[in-house]
């Protein structure tokens, strides 16, 4: 009996130890489970417009650059400004040497004078030649008239002789009445000679008159194409303009002034050297303002259109302006975005960024983009559902296929009908989850 009780007590102790061990393992497995269950944060579908925010990095550039011109070949005496310096209209940028101005004026006047003299000489020669031509023409016409008259008289005489010979032949024929044919034949030969003489004279007259006509044509004045004088006139006109400019420079004591308010962006002259044909300064024009120029990835081009409002940020300042132009670069990878800025408030050359915001249509069902997963040609979200499990009512992740209509960097618009306003969509999880996994909601902070 005692042995039986001892055995029973032994095994009951074992049973008690087993229960104790199971209790400990229960706690351990619960603790381990708490560590392995994914912690998720949920979000419900909401109605919103998807915003596309694109940031474009770029620089502030001048919108328009003007060149400050002066006359070439003038010696630069001093330069009063430096590159990047802001100047006002009328400020002296440089001073030119007066002596070189005078020298240049003299040189141009000499050139002008020599051209004028050349023109005068050419005009005199032309008039002389014209007179000579007129004289030759008059003589040719006179020769032609005389020759024509002389030939008419000779032809009339030869024709008269021919008629007389023909009359003699007729008279002799009537007189002999078929007898004495020899004497008629002789008269007929004489008449034939007269005919030939007449025709020869007619031919020679014609040849002589043709020669006389050609002499008249040769004596007529020729239309010679000579534009040298017109060219000289143009040159003189240009010289006059240059002289005018030089005189103006001289009048300003050789000072070169800023034509507008702006910033000097380039100096192309040096003290002690002569000015060139091109401008000696480049500068911005404040009236035209500044502009933002940045590069945007070609793939983001769909988010920007000409006329869109962008916010330009630079050194703590910001300005809302509209996009002026979009140009694809040669590589087809970037798009040059340009937006005009007011002249005040921004500094030329500083870096800036343009934030472009574009909104889609209003979607009634949008979820955080992180909540949407991609499968094989399908998109899906995980919903948190309360389910009865062995451990009681637990939050369980369930996969739900959805159709993504549009998405930006933060949200995705889904086709309506799949999710309702009560749906709890897993927007964030601290580990990978699968459909059916238990999940734990993250505690809300604050």
């Amino acid at each position: 009996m005692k042995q039986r009780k001892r055995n029973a007590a032994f095994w009951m102790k074992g049973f008690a130890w087993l229960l104790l061990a199971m209790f400990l393992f229960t706690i351990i497995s619960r603790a381990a489970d708490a560590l392995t269950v994914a912690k998720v944060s949920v979000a419900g579908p909401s109605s919103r417009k998807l915003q596309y925010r694109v940031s474009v990095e770029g620089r502030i550039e001048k919108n328009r650059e003007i060149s400050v011109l002066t006359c070439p070949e003038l010696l630069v005496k001093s330069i009063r400004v430096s590159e990047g310096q802001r100047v006002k209209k009328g400020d002296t940028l440089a001073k030119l040497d007066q002596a070189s101005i005078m020298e240049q004026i003299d040189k141009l006047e000499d050139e002008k004078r020599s051209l004028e003299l050349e023109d005068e000489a050419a005009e005199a020669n032309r008039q002389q030649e014209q007179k000579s031509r007129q004289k030759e023409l008059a003589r040719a016409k006179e020769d032609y008239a005389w020759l024509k008259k002389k030939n008419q008289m000779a032809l009339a005489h030869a024709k008269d002789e021919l008629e007389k010979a023909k009359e003699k032949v007729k008279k002799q024929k009537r007189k002999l009445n078929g007898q004495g044919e020899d004497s008629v034949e002789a008269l007929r030969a004489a008449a034939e000679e007269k005919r030939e003489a007449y025709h020869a004279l007619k031919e020679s007259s014609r040849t002589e008159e043709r020669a006389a006509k050609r002499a008249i044509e040769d004596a007529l004045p020729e239309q010679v194409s000579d534009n040298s004088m017109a060219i000289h006139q143009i040159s003189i006109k240009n010289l006059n303009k240059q002289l005018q400019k030089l005189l103006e420079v001289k009048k300003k004591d050789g000072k070169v002034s800023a034509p507008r308010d702006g910033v000097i962006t380039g100096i192309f002259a040096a003290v002690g050297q002569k000015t060139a044909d091109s401008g000696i300064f480049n500068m911005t024009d404040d009236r035209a303002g500044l502009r933002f120029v940045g590069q945007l990835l070609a793939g983001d081009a769909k988010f920007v259109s000409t006329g869109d409002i962008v916010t330009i940020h630079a050194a703590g300042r910001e300005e809302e302006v509209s996009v002026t132009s979009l140009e694809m670069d040669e590589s087809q990878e970037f798009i040059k975005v340009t937006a005009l800025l007011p002249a005040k408030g921004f500094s030329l050359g500083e870096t800036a960024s343009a934030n472009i915001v574009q909104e889609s249509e209003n979607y009634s069902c949008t979820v955080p983009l992180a909540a949407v997963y991609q499968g094989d040609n399908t998109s899906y979200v995980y919903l948190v559902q309360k389910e009865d499990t062995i451990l009681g009512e637990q939050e369980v992740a369930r996969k739900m296929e959805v159709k993504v209509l549009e998405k930006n960097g933060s949200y995705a618009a889904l086709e309506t009908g799949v999710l309702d306003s009560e749906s709890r969509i897993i927007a964030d999880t601290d580990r990978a989850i699968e459909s059916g996994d238990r999940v734990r909601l993250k505690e809300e902070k604050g």
Partner: protein
Amino acid sequence: MKKILQNSILYLFALLEISPLIFLFAGTFMGNQEVISYIAPVLKKGDGYASWRLFPVFPTLKNIAGLLLDSPEFFQMFWNSVKITAAISAGQLIFGMPAAWGLARYSFVGKRLVYMLYIIMMMMPFQVTMLSEYLVLDWLKLLDTSFAVILPGIFSTFSVFIMYRFFCGIPESIIEAARIDGAGELQIFFRLGIPLGASGIISAMVLSFLECWSMMEQPMTFLKTKSLWPLSLFLPEITGGNAGLSLCASFVALLPAVFIFLAGQEYLEQGIASSAVKG
């Protein structure tokens, strides 16, 4: 020689009888892949017949560690089983023991009828009384609560029957002597009945424990909420992913029953013997 032959035959049959336990024990220390390779035909993932090994090719404690450290569901169901079994056992002690004493020691009108009803109820399988139990529990609004399983278990007839047999075995002369000495009926029950019928009571409790620990139909029928399910319903489908874990869980689930059985083994034998001569 004859005895050796007899013993050999008996040991052979005994070995066959406990072979599932041996396989279960071996499977507890097998890796998942090894288990699957043996039972692939059962899982319809292979041809031929399932096979088994007494010793794992690559023994591992991974399944035990996974079960004990990473399966809170298992423990939830384990404690559900403990709760249900303890409640039923306690209830049987409170209600079954006096009932058995009354039936065994007192004469009253209709005693035979009551006894017959007990016998009939004991003989009926659960499937027969399932619907009526369901309707009663529904009426009591106890469905899908632990009481839906505990309450019918408390009033189980089998334990009353076993205790009744033991109480009947107490000599009437001892009871009469106690009465002559001035003992009241409660004193007789507590001072004589329980100590003298302790073997039967323990035997009934052991049998009740084993029955409740492996109870399946009642929880499946009356409990919808999974968090109330006992360990006997921890029947994860044996698939490629959890075959090893399932074997391990079965092994661990077996342990309390083994401890209780060993603790009450000798009483149990008496109880079985007692029930064998019932009627």
